[in-house]
């Protein structure tokens, strides 16, 4: 029952999406222009007989290579046929060629792709082999052979071409089907006893349809081009006007009348181009769909009142942030995601920056590191990193990044470059900042790996990121961060993506490194357990502002703000999930 409800819910959602897509497509001027061009070209070719008094086949000696005139608007070709008539009638051939290509390719590729993606197994393996083989054949050469055998009927030739490019549909449909197949709602439909056929048509087709339409639009153009190429080679039906055979004629007269290449060339270019633009516009319309569902950084409410400052009292302050603001451009203005945030950290101290998703804590951290996305704007009244003052809004950290201030990200796997060995990635900043040679940097990298507690540092240094575990990858990232012995380490949810046991180990490691290196650490987290474990001081953020700050023990014992109290209550219940905190994973 529930699953049935769930699937209908998704179906309705998708139907609404689709209407949105069409509307967006029609709002895109390029998309509209493309549709208009396609409609006009189609009408002009279908109505060719009525649009021009001339026949595309009748030769008139007086009209051989004639320049444009009132009688013959585009002049005559090499044997005196009316160019305009041939252009209009040729459109029929081109459009038919495109249509046959797409229909045949889709009729073969889509069902086979659905079946291969849905059932997998041996059928999939065979279909994939055949598809790979077809892709490896040069179309024009195969078509030449086919025409030698079967004759030069355009429809048949284009049908064969449709078969040859069916893999384009097959691969797309197969990949999309495989993705959808494992979605929950398809599982649900299967459990409720829908037949495979119905699942495919109702659920899978709905998702696959859009990419298929885009692909079809492109392939229509490819079909037109190939047909033109074959006709240009003189292999088309001689009685049938086509843009390709017009180019053949233009080629024969390239010395006498080079202008003849223009009209058929433009016809091909504009038509195929319109299909390509239509495909792009469709894709953009669909991508907008995705983009809109992305959560934007939450806007902050009105100013909450007192200016809370999380300033350190220690002697040796290594990071000072004052009056930090971060905003994003938004239709009709700016969206402020961080406002008036002030904090500082002393050497050897750990400051916890706590808050739920969208509280602005990660945005604050990125602003300090100069890592905000391009569109974001950051301003501050003061930013000093290791004693060096940075002008407001400057995202460059010049000599500081990697040397005085370093970053440990949340998601370990996605933060290592998959194509380089771990050892190379640790060596890179060492070679740049410490000017170490290749060997020396590598040895240093192995030493660092040992320092962050990796049992087989030599082996791990030689590994690629996909060969090591998440916990190990986080140690590697910490090793990179501490490689140049920074004064400040900013760790953005460094344990959130890890197993509980590994979390504890990573916190131990950070604690140890803080003592050994005398670093200041800013720990961005939503987890009060982590705060209690490692932080000396804590600053609570909500809606882009600091709500409360103080010694960890003070804040825990006597939270002054009701929101902090609520967070603490929720967090310290142990296993019970943080109601709102666990809904989204903080980035």
């Amino acid at each position, binding site marked *: 029952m529930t699953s049935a409800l769930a699937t209908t819910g998704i179906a309705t959602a998708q139907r609404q999406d689709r209407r949105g897509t069409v509307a967006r497509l029609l709002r895109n001027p390029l998309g509209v222009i493309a549709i208009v061009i396609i409609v006009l070209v189609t009408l002009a070719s279908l109505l060719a007989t009525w649009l021009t008094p001339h026949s595309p086949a009748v030769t008139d000696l007086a009209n051989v290579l004639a320049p444009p005139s009132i009688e013959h608007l585009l002049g005559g070709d090499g044997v005196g046929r009316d160019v305009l008539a041939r252009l209009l009638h040729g459109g029929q051939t081109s459009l038919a060629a495109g249509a046959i290509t797409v229909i045949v390719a889709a009729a073969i590729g889509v069902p086979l792709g659905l079946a291969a993606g849905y059932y997998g197994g041996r059928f999939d393996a065979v279909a994939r082999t055949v598809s*790979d083989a077809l892709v490896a054949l040069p179309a024009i050469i195969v078509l030449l052979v086919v025409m030698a055998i079967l004759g030069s009927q355009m429809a048949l030739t284009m049908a064969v071409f449709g078969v040859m490019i069916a893999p384009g549909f097959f691969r797309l449909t197969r990949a999309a089907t495989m993705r959808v197949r494992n979605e929950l709602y398809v599982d649900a439909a299967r459990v409720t006893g829908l037949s495979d056929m119905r699942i495919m048509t109702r659920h899978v087709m709905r998702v696959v349809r859009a990419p298929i339409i885009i692909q079809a639009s492109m392939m229509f153009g490819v079909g037109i081009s190939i047909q033109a190429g074959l006709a240009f080679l003189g292999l088309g039906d001689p009685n049938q006007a086509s843009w390709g055979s017009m180019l053949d004629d233009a080629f024969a007269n390239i010395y006498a009348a080079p202008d003849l290449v223009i009209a058929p*060339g433009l016809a091909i270019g504009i038509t195929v181009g319109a299909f390509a633009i239509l495909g792009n516009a469709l894709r953009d319309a669909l991508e907008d769909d995705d983009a809109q569902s992305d959560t934007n950084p939450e806007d902050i409410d009105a100013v909450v009142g007192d200016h809370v400052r999380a300033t350190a009292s220690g002697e040796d302050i290594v990071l000072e942030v004052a009056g930090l603001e971060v905003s994003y451009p938004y239709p009709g203005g700016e969206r402020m995601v961080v406002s008036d945030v002030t904090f500082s950290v002393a050497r050897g101290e750990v400051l916890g920056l706590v808050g739920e998703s969208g509280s602005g804590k990660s945005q604050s951290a990125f602003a300090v590191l100069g890592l905000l996305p391009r569109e974001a704007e950051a301003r501050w009244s003061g930013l000093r990193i290791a004693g060096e003052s940075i002008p407001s809004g400057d995202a460059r950290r010049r000599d500081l990044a990697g040397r005085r201030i370093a970053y440990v990200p949340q998601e370990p796997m996605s933060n290592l470059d998959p*194509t380089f060995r771990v050892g190379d990635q640790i060596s890179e900043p060492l070679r740049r900042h410490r000017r170490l040679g290749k060997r020396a940097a590598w040895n240093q990298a192995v030493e660092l790996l040992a320092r962050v507690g990796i049992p087989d540092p030599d082996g791990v240094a030689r590994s690629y990121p996909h060969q090591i575990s998440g916990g190990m990858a986080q140690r590697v990232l910490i090793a990179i961060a501490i490689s140049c012995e920074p004064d400040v380490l900013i760790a953005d949810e460094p344990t959130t993506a890890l197993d509980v046991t590994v979390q504890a180990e990573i916190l131990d490691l950070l604690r140890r490194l803080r003592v050994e290196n005398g670093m200041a650490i800013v720990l961005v987290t939503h987890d009060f357990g982590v705060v209690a474990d490692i932080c000396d001081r804590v600053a609570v953020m909500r809606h882009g502002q600091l709500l409360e700050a103080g010694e960890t023990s003070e804040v825990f014992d006597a939270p002054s703000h009701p929101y902090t109290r609520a967070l603490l209550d929720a967090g310290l219940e142990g296993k019970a999930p943080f109601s709102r905190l666990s809904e989204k994973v903080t980035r």
Partner: protein
Amino acid sequence: MVRFVAARLTSGIILVVVVSAISFWLIYLGSGDIARTIVGDGATDEQVVVKAQELGLDQPIAAQFLMWSSRAIIGDFGVSWFTNQGISTLITAKLPVTLSIAVGSSLVSAAVGIALGVAAALRRGWLDRALQIVAIVGFALPGFWFALVLVATLSVQAGLFPATGYVPLSASPSGWLSSLVLPVASLAIGVTAAIAQQVRSAVIDVLRQDYIRSLRSRGLSGSQIVFKHALRNASPSALTVLSLQFINLLGGAVIIERIFALPGLGQMTLDATVQGDVPVIMAIIVFTIVIVVVVNLILDVAYGWLNPKVRIA
């Protein structure tokens, strides 16, 4: 890596065998009374029978295929039915022309396409919009149309490059180069646009990855991040387009060779298919597929080298 290459090689060999068997069968099925075509309409029935026996056409098709493939394996593709020339020598004479065009266009479009794609991904703005337009134009207009326009302007009117003809590399390197400029340029336009487009979106995609932000946090220079990390991660998708486009280039070369009167496989294919010169057609099919298999193998190895997940399973 060795297993990866071996697997690719095996599937390539299977492809050659299967495609040549199918083509052989289709050609025989479709091409009617070949012996009569060769000896001409004026010949007596007896002469036709003799010719058929001479060519082995009276044998069952499987036997003919076996005979053909046992020779083809050692590189003996027989003689052309119409010109009586040895096919292997014919092809080795013409192959360099077609390969010069196809490989030249691939290299030019890879270099220009990657540069344009990276620039558009980094700069965005007007360059990016210009690239979008170029990509559509390159896709929309067939290479042979560009060839016609280039011939009409640069050779017929400006006289900068030869309109027709081929100069072998051994005869004159500069002549060779200048005879290739227009053919390569006209084929490369579309492929460059396709590669640039692909590289652009791949680079934009990579630059959004978390590890790029982490690299920036380490104070590495922008060019190091782009050219060492982003480009390397984006290049597999560039290679994929390149391997697909190379296959198209081989086909496109057929048309281009006609325009520039280049003595490559293209003209030979055209003549052979029009005449029904079966041994020549078969040899061309085998050669093209072998070329495609070899080029794809090279690109696959490059792909594996760039992508450790493929190399080290």
